[in-house]
């Protein structure tokens, strides 16, 4: 059904990280095939966000490797990782509150534009052209998430649901190869969640690879091609949604084992 090529886009190999005595991640390995939606699920504190921070360079693993497009990226600083084409959103939305909605998305174009401090201050002719294309691409992404009519409002003025969409638009403006969404549906109502679902599927159509952390099981089951389940820092199952749903270990992790006996 899915065209899975030989080389995965992202490969995690035996990733371990402890915060003091807490083993946040313990020998986690899995791969993400290009063009797929991979979900990471697990109870609170299972290590999902830690995993995201490791992939995006905000944390370094104590052991193990993160391989993106065949290149080891663990230990690289976040901006370097971003420049390779990995974009993310945050569990707690992190917008530039006092910049406009449009400007927020324009910052997303940072890695794909090059006007430096001096060129910008002197407003060299080529930078004006670059500005125009930055603005146009940013507007396109705003249209995609349906925020174009709010382009000139400050980002802080948006309700939470729209803030999440704006964060996605900002990440998309960076034209990533891999997009990491950290609980994009949290705080969204049913209608907004449905729109998010359509959006994720549309992005996969575009050829984007998505890694998703999500607590909304309905959404996860609908959009994920593969699911990895974490529990106390360990990977306890991977597979397509239907298989994972039936996995007794997964059920035990979510519901506890007592109910069976």
């Amino acid at each position: 059904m899915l065209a899975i090529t030989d080389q995965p886009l992202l490969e995690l190999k035996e990733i371990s990280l402890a915060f003091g005595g807490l083993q946040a991640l313990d020998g986690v390995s899995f791969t993400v095939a290009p063009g797929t939606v991979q979900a990471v699920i697990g109870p609170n504190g299972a290590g999902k966000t830690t995993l995201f921070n490791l992939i995006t360079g905000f944390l370094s693993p104590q052991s193990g490797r993160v391989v993106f497009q065949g290149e080891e990226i663990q230990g690289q600083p976040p901006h370097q990782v971003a420049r390779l084409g990995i974009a993310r959103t945050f569990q707690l939305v992190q917008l530039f509150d006092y910049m406009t909605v449009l400007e927020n998305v324009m910052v997303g174009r940072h890695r794909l534009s090059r006007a430096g401090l001096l060129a910008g201050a002197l407003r060299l002719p080529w930078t004006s052209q670059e500005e125009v294309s930055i603005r146009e691409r940013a507007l396109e992404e705003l249209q995609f998430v349906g925020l174009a009519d709010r382009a000139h409002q400050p980002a802080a003025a948006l309700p939470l649901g729209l803030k999440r969409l704006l964060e996605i638009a900002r990440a998309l403006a960076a034209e990533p190869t891999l997009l990491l969404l950290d609980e994009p549906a949290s705080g969204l109502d049913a209608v907004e969640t449905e729109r998010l679902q359509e959006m994720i599927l549309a992005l996969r159509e575009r050829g984007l690879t998505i890694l998703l952390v999500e607590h909304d099981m309905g959404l996860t089951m609908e959009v994920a091609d593969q699911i990895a389940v974490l529990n106390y820092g360990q990977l306890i199952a991977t597979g397509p949604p239907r298989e994972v749903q039936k996995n007794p270990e997964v059920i035990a992790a979510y519901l506890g084992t007592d109910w069976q006996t």
Partner: protein
Amino acid sequence: MNPRKFLNPWVLFGAAALLTAGVLDNDYYLTLINFIGIHALLVVGLNLLMGYGGQISLGHAAFFGLGSYTSGILTATYGVNPWLALLAGLVVCGVTAFLIGVPALKLRGYYLAMATLGFGIIVYIFFTEAHKLTGGPSGLAGIPSLSIGGFKLDTPKRLYLLIWPVLGVILALSANLVDSRTGRALRALHEGETAAQSLGVNTAKLKLLIFIWSALYASLAGSLYAHTLNFIAPSSFGFMFSIKLVTMVVLGGMASIWGSLLGAAVLTVLPEILTMFHDYEVIIFGAILMVVMIFLPRGLVRGLKDLWEFRRYKKEGGIIG
């Protein structure tokens, strides 16, 4: 044509500057205006660092002093051409900002404030103690005036014709900058460093760049200052002046280019006006600052704009009565 198009700050700035040049012929006022210009250069630079970039500096007077003393020493003691000395000041300040910035900008908030404060104090002590070089606490005299092709800039009017066009250019550069790719990255750094990094902004490098950039403004201001007064002393570059610069930024408005100019103007003129209150001068000065910051916490420019919009809103029958 739309008349509002002509009501933009740049046109007003140019018109006011031209009018001043044409009409005003009072040395006292022109000198005061020149100091406003020099202070505005400093404040707009500090505002880029602080208001836009979110990195506090309590040692900005040190760069002002370094530029000033480099110009002063090279011209008065070694007879170097003032323009070359000005360039040398830029180099000295740029290199110093780089060397200080690399370790200091790893710090945040209060810690960065402390580090820059320490830097300011060290430089101040250097100015007072390096007698042979700087003339010590009694200052450095005999700094020649600038001249352009034999035309000596030695009267307030002539200096005005240099300082304010320079200020105009610097304001324009700064306004361009904040509305450019790097400017957006700078504001993004201020409002969410993590998010900025996740989009590929090298925040460490950007902080250093803007620190150096604002130090260059200060150096330029310092050189102009030295050649305006023809005499400099360490007391102009102490901790209190650093604080005054921060006050100008905050009073005029953080992250506002025009606020920088207004902040510099108000805090340069106000002490002059208040001298008539003699001993109570400082108290009244403090009280004015407090009142402004309580009622216009976003600074003068934004605060007055808010008030204006509120008034119009009420006139148009808004619900707030």
